[in-house]
């Protein structure tokens, strides 16, 4: 095992299982980066997280979880101009926020290599849209590289820095969630000596200043650099033609979809057609495409989303006067994730070749089965303070599932863990789009629809990202709205990065620059601001009720730390202390004799630790607090209208063995 941490110590000849995101980070490390930043976002978060986690053992590496993507990319540009290779990462929608620096990057060019790694999210399993950021390059002119597997994720990233310096472009490295979260074998390369990484900013007004004709001149220059890059890409190792036998059919693909394609052709037993693998999907040189077209009658482009390659290649085919047929989105869908199943089916239809029996029958069986299965959607973790916040809001506005009561108040949603509040049983959002849309849209609704009260929600990390000007705007323009900041002290959903609200790190150390959120809100001109613990649901609900009666902008801060972090910190701290039993202590119990199954805890609060059990004697269902998963937040205890929930002492082992019988020993 020699080297304990291959991510920082690995050299040529070493091999390990790594995540796609870690492979990107390792490639950047091999290229000798000195700067790495991001605003966290799934699926890209681990790219910077792994560098940040290890930075104490990496010489001359600066890492930053920036407050937003706009700042993060500007930081990478500043590092590059100082002569330090820089890596910036973000999720797909992050580029909307960073589109302005991205737009100017080609005008100014770079000094040391700059790579922008983007985690796209087709099928939107962790996002509010599935935009394909490749289209941005049609106007930002940022070249795009698309690795197909773990090894390429590392190798391409490393090479991207050289290409970046050679042509003075920031390079986009595109990785969909399937690659970011693919884990597989990686062969390491050597690391560059890191001792000489240091900044030296040299003035370069010719390139860095953009005003009037200076901007026009820089515009001309980057179009010229783009042509030079195109020439380089005709022969580069990144784009490969795999020659077929005498077939007149050709396939073009890139990235993970290329991996799907190669395996699909193997599954279908097809090996005779010509294939073009594009490592660079922007810009595309006409000569390369022309060479691939030679001898072909029919070409199909296999790619995800709306057809970025098809759009470019059809234009090139027109310019070249290609007489064959070109297909793409005719066979491969534009929305949702393009899976290996989609590629197998699409290729089989395109070639008019039957599907393998095992595959066809599995697809058919599954279609019948799917409809019979109850849907499962994500929900808040057990003990999550957001559950209490949503419960309090819904109580305050009179919503009830069990009593079939709707709510009249408009609830503006936003991005974060609390977004899960839009799902059943809470259904507590009326719209959800991008970061900080809630208050902005909500403000106008409050101005134009005076009959309805409006509540806008935001998390602490999202608020710091770009919410401050939105709140100031609402105050300055006389909005009538209740703004609830769900402050759980962490950017939780993306893996718990710190926010300015983080008071204590996971190891118990106090943060040096904790922000007083209440003071910040006050300083923006909000006179009605209160900070409360959302787990005191009755108090919180009545506070929401009274706030809704007040005019103007009201801010309530639902302040309670993310339960996962609290539990983790306690575990770490208790390990150092004495005699902490993970499974012992006092817990809550539902007394069968008093519970009337009113559903207040089971459906309205819907804590997953409250489960349904069958009484073996009477065969009746009853509600039960699962002792193995309850984290003792006590919210159910507070809300039970029949006082059926009480505190008990327990021992998990005997509890489990005897489950089904009333057994807990009362205190």
């Amino acid at each position: 095992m020699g080297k304990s941490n291959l991510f920082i110590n690995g050299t040529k000849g070493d091999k390990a299982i790594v995540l796609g995101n870690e492979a990107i980070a390792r490639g950047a490390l091999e290229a000798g980066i000195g700067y790495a930043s991001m605003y966290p976002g799934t699926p890209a978060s681990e790219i910077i997280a792994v560098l940040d986690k290890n930075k104490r053992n990496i010489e001359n590496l600066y890492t930053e979880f920036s407050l937003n993507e706009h700042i993060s990319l500007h930081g990478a540009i500043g590092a590059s101009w100082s002569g330090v290779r820089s890596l910036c990462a973000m999720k797909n929608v992050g580029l909307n926020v960073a589109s302005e620096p991205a737009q100017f990057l080609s005008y100014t060019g770079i000094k040391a290599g700059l790579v922008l790694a983007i985690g796209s999210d087709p099928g939107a399993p962790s996002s509010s849209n599935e935009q394909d950021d490749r289209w941005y390059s049609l106007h930002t002119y940022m070249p795009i590289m698309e690795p197909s597997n773990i090894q390429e994720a590392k190798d391409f990233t490393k090479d991207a820095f050289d290409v970046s310096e050679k042509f003075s472009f920031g390079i986009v490295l595109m990785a969909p969630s399937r690659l970011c979260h693919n884990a597989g074998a990686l062969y390491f390369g050597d690391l560059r000596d890191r001792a000489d990484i240091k900044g030296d900013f040299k003035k370069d007004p010719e390139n860095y200043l953009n005003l009037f004709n200076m901007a026009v001149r820089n515009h001309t220059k980057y179009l010229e650099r783009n042509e030079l890059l195109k020439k380089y890409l005709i022969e580069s190792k990144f784009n490969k033609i795999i020659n077929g036998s005498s077939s007149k059919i050709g396939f073009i693909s890139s990235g993970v979809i290329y991996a799907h394609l190669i395996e699909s052709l193997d599954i279908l037993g097809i090996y005779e057609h010509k294939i073009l693998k594009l490592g660079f999907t922007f810009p595309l040189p006409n000569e390369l495409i022309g060479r691939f077209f030679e001898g072909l009658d029919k070409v199909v482009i296999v790619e995800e989303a709306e057809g970025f390659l098809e759009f470019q290649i059809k234009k090139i085919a027109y310019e070249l006067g290609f007489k064959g047929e070109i297909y793409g989105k005719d066979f491969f869908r534009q929305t949702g994730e393009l899976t290996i199943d989609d590629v197998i089916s699409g290729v089989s239809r395109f070639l008019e070749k039957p599907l393998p029996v095992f595959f066809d029958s599995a697809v058919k069986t599954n279609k019948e089965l799917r409809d019979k299965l109850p849907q499962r959607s994500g929900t808040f973790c057990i003990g999550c303070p957001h559950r209490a916040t949503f419960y309090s809001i819904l109580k305050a506005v009179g919503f009830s599932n069990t009593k079939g009561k709707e709510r009249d108040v408009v609830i503006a949603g936003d991005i974060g863990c609390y977004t899960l509040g839009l799902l059943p049983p809470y259904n507590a959002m009326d719209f959800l789009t991008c970061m900080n849309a809630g208050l902005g849209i909500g403000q106008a609704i409050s101005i134009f629809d005076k009959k309805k009260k409006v509540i806008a929600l935001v998390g602490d990390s999202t608020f710091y990202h770009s919410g401050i000007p939105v709140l100031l705007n609402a105050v300055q323009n006389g909005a009538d709205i209740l703004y609830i900041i769900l402050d759980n002290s962490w950017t939780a959903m993306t893996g718990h990065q710190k926010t300015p609200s983080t008071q204590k790190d996971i190891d118990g150390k106090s943060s040096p620059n904790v922000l007083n959120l209440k003071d910040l809100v006050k300083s923006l001109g909000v006179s009605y601001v209160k900070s409360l613990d959302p787990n005191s649901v009755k108090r919180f609900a009545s506070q929401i009720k009274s706030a809704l009666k007040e005019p103007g902008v009201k801010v309530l801060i639902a302040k309670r730390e993310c339960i996962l972090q609290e539990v983790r910190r306690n575990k770490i701290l208790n390990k150092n202390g004495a005699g902490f039993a993970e499974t012992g202590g006092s817990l809550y119990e539902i007394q069968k004799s008093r519970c009337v199954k009113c559903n207040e805890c089971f459906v309205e609060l819907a804590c997953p630790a409250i489960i349904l059990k069958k009484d073996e004697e009477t065969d009746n269902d009853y509600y039960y607090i699962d002792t193995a998963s309850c984290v003792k937040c006590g919210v159910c205890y507070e809300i039970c209208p029949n006082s059926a929930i009480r505190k008990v002492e327990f021992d998990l082992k005997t509890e489990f063995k005897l489950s089904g019988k009333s057994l807990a020993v009362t205190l």
Partner: protein
Amino acid sequence: MKKFNIAIVGLGGQGIITMGTVMKNAALSSDLQDVSGSERRGGAQREGYVETFVKYIFYENESEMKDPRKSMHSPMIESGGTDALISLEPLETLRGACYLNKNSIVIFNKTPHIPISVRMGQTSYPEISFIVSELRRITENIFFYDFDAISIENFNSLTQKNIIALGALFAKADIPIDVTAIENILRTGKGAENNLKAFKLGLKL
């Protein structure tokens, strides 16, 4: 080229991604071997459906390993393409059933987690007998255990159920990876003692 695919499904927080990582790390000994497979992390720790794929690839020789038509592998398993399916939640076994074919081996955990839709009374949770009969329509090789109970019984905690299930997989399926390779990985990781014990418990099932 030989392939062996394993799909692991369940809910966020059940240790599914860890299982995949252990299995993949056991495949680093030979150069003619490759391993891949993506994770679906959307619902991690939030009761959502999570799946991870482990794809073992064994090349016949070096030239096959360098053949561009053979050496690139999708991170996903296609419908009907898995040799084994492990599920840590009964209902989710059926969501993972799309990967099964008539020769696949299924190992699933009997302890249910009821989804919100069932909680709200909109749908009902299927009986274990229904799950088994649906699976039988595809394959006969079905094994199910109460991994939660075994974990609590032996460790006073739920955290070992994933490694117990991993042991059960090696007991029931002919995995082309040495049991000792898995044990070596467990031995060098966190919580080695409990993990090795849990793996052995699974092997005896």
